[in-house]
């Protein structure tokens, strides 16, 4: 069976129909289905992202709770260490405190001077500063000095004696002139 012969007019109409069909497909995919699919895909990505964040957040909350339990001793120890030093500039309170401390140990005329202050190299101690003090005790006897140093080392855990110079006094062999260099770790406030 041979295909029906189409007239010129019919061929024209067929061509127009084909063009219309292609145009319809183009409009449909470009302006209707395409944006819809894109928006759906974007929403799916956002949902996945949010969902993973929600899952992570549950883990984070659990971690925070367990860390809070674990860090109880560390936080109380940290609070204790912070409380060792009062607020304010160290130069204002450290020398009087040292003077009073040695006076309580029967060593009078103690003088503390600030030698220098340096930042710690360790990142975890970035909030703390190391102050080096020169403590001068013009007249002390060895036994009292030993007791005082023991007491100082026990009551001031953040203080570390780095240098010690003891010299007998020429006219008073029972007394010594003492110079102490001590480094104290103080929080920046």
């Amino acid at each position: 069976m041979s295909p029906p012969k189409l007239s010129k007019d019919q061929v024209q109409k067929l061509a127009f129909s084909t063009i219309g069909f292609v145009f319809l497909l183009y409009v449909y995919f470009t302006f209707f289905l395409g944006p819809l699919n894109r928006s759906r895909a974007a929403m799916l990505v956002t949902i996945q992202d949010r969902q993973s964040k929600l899952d992570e957040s549950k883990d984070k909350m659990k971690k925070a709770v367990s860390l809070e339990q674990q860090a109880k001793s560390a936080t109380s120890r940290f609070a204790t260490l912070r409380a060792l030093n009062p607020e304010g500039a160290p130069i204002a309170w450290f020398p009087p405190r040292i003077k009073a401390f040695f006076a309580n140990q029967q060593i009078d005329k103690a003088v503390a001077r600030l030698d220098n202050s340096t930042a710690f190299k360790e990142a975890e101690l970035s909030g703390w500063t190391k102050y080096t003090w020169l403590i001068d005790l013009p007249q002390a006897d060895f036994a009292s000095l030993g007791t005082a140093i023991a007491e100082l080392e026990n009551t001031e855990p953040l203080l570390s004696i780095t240098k010690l110079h003891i010299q007998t006094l020429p006219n008073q062999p029972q007394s010594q002139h003492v110079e102490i260099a001590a480094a104290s770790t103080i929080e920046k406030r």
Partner: protein
Amino acid sequence: MALHLNLLHEEKLEQRQRQRDPLKIGIMVLSGFGALLFLYYLFNAYRTLEIKSRLSAVERNWTKIEPEVTAADKRVAELEGIIKTTSALDNYIENRFFWAPFLQKVSHCVPPNAQLTSLDASVLDENKGISVSLEGVAAGREPRSVAEDLRQMLIEQLGHGYGGVKVDFKTLEDLDTIVTVGGTNMPMAHYLLAINFNPNPPAKSAASPTPDHTRKR
């Protein structure tokens, strides 16, 4: 054979041509296809709306939980910082050198006929060790021997608590001065001792026996 006359031939031909009109057929096919596409679009739109409602539910949840998560994050960072700082501070505290026990050991080593006139001590950089310089005078029939006894005692006493103890004379010289000790005139010697040690106690397996010596007076 009967003669059949078709008087509506032209009319029927026109009707057949109208029915076979490609434009009309095309429009019908297009309309059908368009309807299918429209249905497919509606199906997709419905799915998209469903996903949109899921997204808004997730967003609501996230908005509700986000401040808590941010606070938890902040708290975790803060706690980790506290733990690290406390650990570093504890490390600093534990690695301090305690001078009082050292002074006590030194005071136990000094015999009655020796005197310390100066003590100069310092912690070496990065806690690598302790360096001490002791200066004094010793009196006795053999003052150098008294100073040597002091050196041996220091090695023995410091060796109990510290590692790598080294005690050496930097200076040991006789003095012209004569002193009276217990009613007896005795010559004197001036000494300067250099002491170096590690603040950490020696390992038990590596502990060396204390030097065997008899103290002379």
